[in-house]
């Protein structure tokens, strides 16, 4: 971590807007963010890029623009929070803090819009949320057809109605699993001679959309003699609501998750999604900065949280797999995995050591895919333009399998290789490793 990053953590930045002034003052308006901002590359306007948003934030702080002016709100939500600008910022402006504290200030001032409020409040009631997701899985056949790759596509009347929001017949959405991941697993997957004990924070996407990937992760840990706890009372990490400025809800969710993990008595916490892992490593600490109970808990787990790749490569020195997987593979760096969790070499190391895998690096592998969680829903056109560049870069490698380390990127890539690519297989890198372990048994 850069020394500057530590000292710059603002006091109560998500509770008091004026705490961002220090971050704003760090910006010298050089515009280097233009070189990497995926939204700017698409729209080419100053309001797209971090410098423009800093300019507007300054105008808000000076009282020249109202924070809750609809135009200001629109601009603030036209950001993927991919943190690419922060990688290229010479003066190390923590732009994510500026953006999220502005969004939080809007929510403090005006409350959440009713639709967001309705959706986010279900997250606070896990049983209700869980029932809803399962009902969704049963009912999805009415509006969607099975399109392979754990994906579904809108059926015709819905496809016609949804065209403007990108819900056309070409849209591939991940299918909701009829049996979510955590329902398939016991509380503890034990091991006769455990090397270490880890807890798996599944995240919602692995739980509801990609449970097979979650099972792959469990099988990899089992191959490496790791005892895994998968506490049932874990829930959403809270990042999806936090990026909408809902600080209150993420605090509720984070407390529940911290308590759930405390009860596992595990030595390590494993994530398979950059946003979830980033929450455990950074955001929980920040939102509980002054909390005497949850502050220390958040700090405790932040030091023990690893992306599955880092856990395998650095923590337990995993056993190299021997089974052959014949595939030409490329890897897309998920923004939050690389830019928040600083994980980029480990997944590549894992992939390159799988027998039969030919690894091809794409140009700009760490350029955002345009998903941004809910950004793809609210800004479909821009999101798709960003994704097209990513898919083009992936296609030029000749890879037949595009891997990544984040389920949100998997959703976005699945939809867009279908639109602009050659229908490449989209996989979490852990699934390729799991397949190799499986194949070594078959060849015996």
């Amino acid at each position, binding site marked *: 971590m850069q020394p500057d990053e530590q000292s710059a953590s603002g006091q109560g930045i998500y509770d008091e807007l004026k705490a961002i002034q220090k971050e704003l*003052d*760090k910006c010298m308006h050089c515009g280097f963010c233009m070189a990497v901002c995926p939204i700017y590359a698409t729209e*080419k306007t100053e309001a797209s890029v971090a410098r*423009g948003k800093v*300019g507007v934030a300054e105008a808000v702080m000076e009282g020249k623009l109202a924070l809750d002016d609809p135009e200001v709100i629109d601009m603030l939500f036209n950001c993927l929070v991919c943190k690419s600008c922060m990688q290229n910022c010479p*003066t190390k402006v923590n732009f994510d803090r500026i953006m999220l504290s502005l969004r939080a200030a809007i929510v403090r001032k005006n409350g959440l819009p009713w639709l967001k409020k309705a959706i986010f409040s279900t997250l606070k009631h896990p049983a209700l949320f869980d029932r809803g997701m399962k009902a969704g899985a049963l009912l999805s056949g009415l509006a969607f057809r099975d399109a392979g790759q754990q994906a579904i596509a809108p059926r015709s009347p819905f496809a016609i109605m949804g065209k403007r929001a990108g819900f056309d017949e070409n849209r591939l959405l991940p299918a909701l699993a009829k049996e979510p991941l955590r329902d398939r697993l016991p509380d503890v997957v034990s091991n006769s001679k455990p090397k270490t004990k880890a807890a798996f924070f599944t995240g919602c996407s692995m739980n509801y959309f990609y449970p097979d990937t979650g099972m792959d992760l469990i099988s990899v840990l089992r191959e490496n003699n790791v005892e895994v706890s998968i506490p049932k009372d874990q829930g959403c990490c809270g990042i999806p609501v936090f990026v909408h400025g809902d600080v209150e809800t993420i605090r509720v969710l984070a407390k529940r998750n911290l308590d759930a993990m405390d009860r596992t008595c595990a030595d390590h916490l494993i994530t398979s999604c950059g946003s979830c892992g980033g929450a455990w490593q950074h955001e929980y600490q920040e939102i509980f900065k002054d909390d005497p109970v949850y502050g220390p808990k958040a700090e405790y787990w932040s030091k023990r949280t690893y992306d599955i790749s880092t856990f395998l490569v650095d923590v337990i020195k995993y056993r190299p797999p021997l089974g052959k997987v014949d595939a030409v593979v490329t890897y897309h760096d998920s923004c939050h995995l690389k830019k928040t969790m600083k994980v980029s070499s480990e997944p590549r190391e894992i992939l390159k050591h799988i027998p039969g895998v030919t690894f091809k690096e794409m140009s700009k592998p760490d350029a955002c895919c345009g998903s941004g969680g809910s950004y793809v829903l609210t800004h479909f056109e821009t999101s798709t333009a960003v994704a097209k560049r990513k898919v083009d870069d992936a296609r030029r490698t000749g890879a037949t399998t595009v891997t990544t380390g984040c389920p949100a990127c998997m959703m976005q890539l699945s939809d867009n290789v279908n639109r602009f690519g050659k229908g490449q297989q989209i996989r979490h890198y852990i699934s390729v490793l799991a397949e190799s372990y499986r194949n070594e048994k078959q060849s015996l």
Partner: protein
Amino acid sequence: MLDQAIIEQFRSLLGQGNVLTSKVNLATYSYDATADVPRGTPDVIVMPTTTEQVQSVVNLARKNGIAIYPRGAGTNLSGGTIPVERGIVLSLQKMDKILEVDAENLTATVQPGVVIQDLNNAAAPHGLMYPPDPGTVTTATMGGSVAENSGGLRGLKYGVTKHYVMGMEVVLANGDRVRFGGKTVKNVTAYDFSNLFVGSEGTLGIIVEITCKLLPSPKFRRAMLATYKTVKDAGNTVAGIIKAQVIPATLEIMDNMTIRTVEEFAHVGLPTDAEAVLLIEVDGMAEEVVLREAEAVVKVVGENNGEMRVANSDEERDKVWAARRAALPALASLNNTVVLEDATVPRSHITNMLLALSEIGRKYHLVMGTFGHAGDGNLHPTILADKNDADEMSRVHKAVDEIFATALEFGGTLSGEHGIGMAKMKYLGNEIGDTGLNLMRTMKNALDPTHMLNPGKLIPAPAEEVEHATR
């Protein structure tokens, strides 16, 4: 405010999405990368995608007496793109196509919105490069850098933007489009209009296409870092290297304040007790020549009491240049306002200028670091101040006045590479005199009689000249 009917005409000419009028958009085009200059809010931002659209914007603006501020990526450091008198910001960022890379003729033809680095990326597979490399190479546009005549780190050996522009197409204030120059190495047909429009800062016409020269990329290079106990030794080394007939691609200097700040900020292993460091890179097509030049540099450094470090690997080289790249951001991190100047002196005066600068900093009790392109006499005295402290800011302004006066005393110039814009307009008469100002006005009046193109920049109005004389 502009008449809504005019906005509607822009919309029908350019398309809905290429005409921006929201409060947020207006606010985001009120500044560029320049600190401590007034901001100004435009009435509308237009983003044409064709030359015909640029012409139609110019014609509509002229008929209605509205100012036009051409703009690339807004990374300039002279306040050159700020819409000080309302009107139209004409952003050329959507005209961003590389029309051709002609490897046989070593030229490229681009639209103005192409980012400089994108041109380099397109030239690289041919083993070619576009040498001008301002610090903003990954963000600045070709149009903007041609209009500002940008320099950069390689100026000493490779020259600046004007040495690479071979021809262009320009939309004039009367709406005409004119094409001149081209792909031929030699061309003495007509006036040398390319050199008139390079550095014209958007005041004479709108550049809509550029044909530029490319060079084969050097195959070998050697980076070095020399540290000194006195500024004088560093200055003498610069003169000594040139005298030894070595022209490094890059020959950069940092003073003690900059060295300490960079080290604190980026931890690149700079000696914080050194009074100055030189960062030197020689390059060329033959390894033998490059090594011989590096040896000559090492010798001169030794003769001038410098301590030498040669980068033996790519990582070490990267470290040397990471230190240089960190200079501005490191200094900027010290306070909320960065006043970055580019006063330039003949390189024989580099030592005198460095000493004079540190004296000016002391005299006005300011935090100031100086770094820059020692090899071409182009220094960047950088003052860090608090914009909310009126007393300090007034001392900053006095120091800046004195910096420019000193540069001129040494036979130098107000601006080596950032341009005049509005930041240095009031000093212009001091360098070029009344007759120079008159010539500027004569040309401006001939090409843009109503002064609708980038008003308030580069060419001071007569009244300001009087005010300046009393300063």
